[in-house]
């Protein structure tokens, strides 16, 4: 074992590496990570069924579901509850609010998926997954992840923004600045030679200096 692997936190996934493979029982049958190949996937965990913050989040995820579908993105929930608990909860949500939960939810009773994705934060809870969000691209590569504590419900606008930013970056070979939203200018990657830096300044971009140039896409 190398020094690098020794210092690596156990079970935590890394950006730009293949997302950990899984085969899991869900409310839509047994699903594997490979079943989502060719589309973007947002895998998210919640602490427990029949809890207040999680219920507001499920309603919010259901609300943005059509927008995610427009972006070629599937949604997959997870918690350490049984599939029967999940079924009862999503039926209860529909009965009480009229909102149908359209995405599958993993029943990760043996914590296998939660452990491989580093969803368990023992400092918070040893039995519940934290509020984690993993953005996995159509090739199965983990592209972004956000971790929230148990007490903090997630911001759906940020989740949509991350998907938009990743897809824009892939499509145009650009980066996105702070607080970027669709329609804003994007950042042209910084030139890595003196010649390119000089050419950059003449390229017609909006440049603060040679290393910070923006353009429309």
């Amino acid at each position, binding site marked *: 074992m190398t020094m690098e692997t020794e210092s690596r936190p156990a079970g935590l996934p890394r950006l730009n590496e293949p997302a950990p493979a899984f085969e899991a029982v869900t409310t*839509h*049958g*047994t699903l594997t990570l490979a*079943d989502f190949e*060719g589309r973007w996937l947002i895998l998210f965990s919640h602490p427990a069924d029949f809890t207040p913050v999680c219920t507001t989040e499920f309603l919010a995820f259901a609300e943005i579901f059509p927008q995610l579908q427009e972006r070629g993105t*599937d949604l997959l929930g997870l918690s350490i509850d049984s599939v029967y608990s999940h079924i009862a909860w999503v039926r209860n949500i529909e009965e009480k609010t009229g909102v149908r939960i359209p995405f599958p939810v993993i029943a990760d009773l043996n914590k296998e998926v939660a452990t491989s994705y580093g969803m368990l934060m023992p400092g918070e809870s040893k039995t519940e997954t934290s509020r984690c969000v993993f953005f996995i691209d159509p090739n199965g590569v983990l592209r972004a992840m956000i971790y929230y504590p148990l007490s903090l419900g997630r911001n759906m606008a940020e989740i949509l923004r991350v998907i938009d930013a990743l897809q824009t970056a892939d499509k145009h070979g650009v980066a996105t600045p702070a607080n970027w939203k669709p329609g804003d200018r994007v950042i042209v990657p910084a030139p890595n030679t003196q010649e390119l830096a000089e050419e950059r300044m003449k390229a017609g971009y909006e440049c603060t200096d040679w290393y910070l140039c923006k353009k429309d896409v």
Partner: protein
Amino acid sequence: MACVNPDGTITASAKAILTALGSATTAEQVASLAGLPLFRVRSALRELLGAGLAVLEDGGYRLTDEGRRRA
């Protein structure tokens, strides 16, 4: 199983997939014809293969005689 009920009957989504398999050979085509998410079709196709209702040949899916009978 999500496709086959305990009494041996098949679910509505499995029936839609079997029907689509009458004219489609890939998971993508089946998903489009059946109006189901691709991930769900891929999962169901695994089950239908296991249940002997479909086979995978030359990279394409097709119904078995039993699958055709149940479609």
